[in-house]
C-alpha cells in the first residue's frame, strides 16, 4: 500500500477541494461577466446578435409580416452597473431590467441607452418559442 509522505497534506487537499467549488458558486457574476466589445452579450445559443447593424422601417415591417404567425418568445434583459432604457424597433419599451418581455420571433432593431449615452445597439435575431437572455454592461 502506498502512503503519503506528508500525512498533513491530506486534510489540506480536502479543504482545497471543498473551497474551489464554493468559490465558483459565490462569484457566478464575475464568471459570466459580459466582456463583448458591443457591451451586449447574448446568453441564448439560437439568438444572433449583430452589433451596430440597423434595420430600415420597411425591413422591420417585412420582418414583422414574415414572423407574424410564428410563436412568440420571451426577452430577458439585465443591465450591469447602471440604469438604461430599452428601445425595440424604433420605440421605447421599458427601463432595464426586462423580465419576460413578449417578443415576436425574427430580427429586431434594439438600442439600450442611458440619456445621451448609447450602451448597445444593433440587430437581434430572436428564435421562436425561446427565452432569450441578454446582458448589457453600463460603462
Amino acid at each position, binding site marked *: 500500500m502506498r502512503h503519503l509522505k506528508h500525512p498533513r497534506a491530506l486534510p489540506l487537499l480536502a479543504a482545497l477541494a471543498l473551497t474551489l467549488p464554493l468559490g465558483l458558486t459565490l462569484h457566478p457574476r464575475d464568471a459570466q461577466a459580459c466582456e463583448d466589445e458591443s457591451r451586449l452579450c447574448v446568453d441564448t445559443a439560437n439568438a444572433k446578435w449583430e452589433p451596430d447593424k440597423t434595420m430600415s*422601417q420597411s425591413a422591420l415591417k417585412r420582418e414583422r409580416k414574415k414572423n407574424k404567425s410564428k410563436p412568440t418568445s420571451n426577452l430577458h434583459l439585465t443591465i450591469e452597473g447602471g440604469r438604461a432604457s430599452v428601445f425595440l424597433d424604433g420605440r421605447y419599451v421599458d427601463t432595464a431590467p426586462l423580465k419576460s418581455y413578449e417578443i415576436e420571433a425574427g430580427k429586431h432593431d434594439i438600442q439600450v441607452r442611458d440619456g445621451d449615452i448609447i450602451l448597445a445597439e444593433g440587430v437581434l435575431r430572436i428564435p421562436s418559442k425561446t427565452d432569450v437572455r441578454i446582458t448589457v454592461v453600463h460603462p
Partner: protein
Amino acid sequence: MSLAVSLSILAWPVHGSAASFDPGAAYLLAKKKKSKKAEPTLTPEKAESQRNIVRDKAKARQDAGDQAGAAEALSDEAHKLGDPVLFVDAAETYKIAGDEARSIELVEQGIEEARIGLDILYFLLGERADKGHQYLAEDDVSTQIDRARDIITSAEALIGEIEAEQNAEPEPEPEPEKKPRDGKGMIIAGAVLTGVGVAGLGVMGAGVGMGASAQGQVNDPTVYGTTFDEVDRKGKLGNTLAFVGVGVGVVGLAAGVTLLALGLKKRKQSGASAEEETARVRVVPAFNGQQGGLVLTGRF
C-alpha cells in the same frame, strides 16, 4: 385647360363604376393607397391631444391636493404611451410632491422619470427612432431635453436641501425650569418633629405627675407591703416616662423648630406665591371642659 380636362377624366373612375377601367386612374388609386400606408401612426398633434387628456386627469388630482397621486397618474400613462413629455411632466410633479412632503424618495422618483424622458428624447433624435411615431415636433425635442435637465438639476438641489434639514441637529429642548426649592419638605419634617417633641413633653409631664403621685404614696406610713411595691413600681415607671419624655421632647422640639425655621426661610427666599405664603405651623392652646393642652396645626 387640357390638364384640367384630363384630370377630371382621370378622377372619374375613382368615384364611379369600377367597370369603366382607366390605367391612369388605377395609378392614382395606387398612389393614394401608397400614401395612406406612409401616414404616421402618431403625429405630434395627436400625441398632444392624448397628453392633454392625461394632464387634465392629473390636474384634477393636483387641485385636490394630491400631488403624489397626480405624479403617479402621469407616470403610469407615460409608461403606457411611451410619451417622453409625459415622463417629464411626471418628473416635475414628483418634484413638487417631494418638495411639499419633504420626501427624498418622491424627488428621486421624479429624477428617474426625467431620466427616462431624456432617454426617449435623445432616442428620437437618432436614426433608429420610428419616424412614423412622432410624440412631438423635431424642434420641440431639444426644448424638452432642456426642461428635463433643469428638473434633474433642481431636484438634486432639493434632495441636498432636504438631507440638510434631516441631518441638522434638533434644537435642544429647553430644560424645564427648575422649581426653586421652597422648603416645603423641611417645613413638613419640622412640623412632624415639633409634634413629636410636644408629645415627648406631654409624656414627660405625665411621667413627672405619675412619679410625684407615687412619691406621695410612698411617703405615706400607712402604705406598705405589696401596695408599697406597686406604688414604687408606678413611681419608677413615672420616672422612666419623664426621662424618656424629656429626651424625646427636647430633641424633637429642637430639631423640629430648627427645620421649621429653615423651611420657612427657604420658602420666603423662593418667592412663593401669596397663597402659598400663607403656609404656617401653629401651636395653639386648646381647652375643653375636662382637659387642656396644645394643638399643633400645619398648613403647607
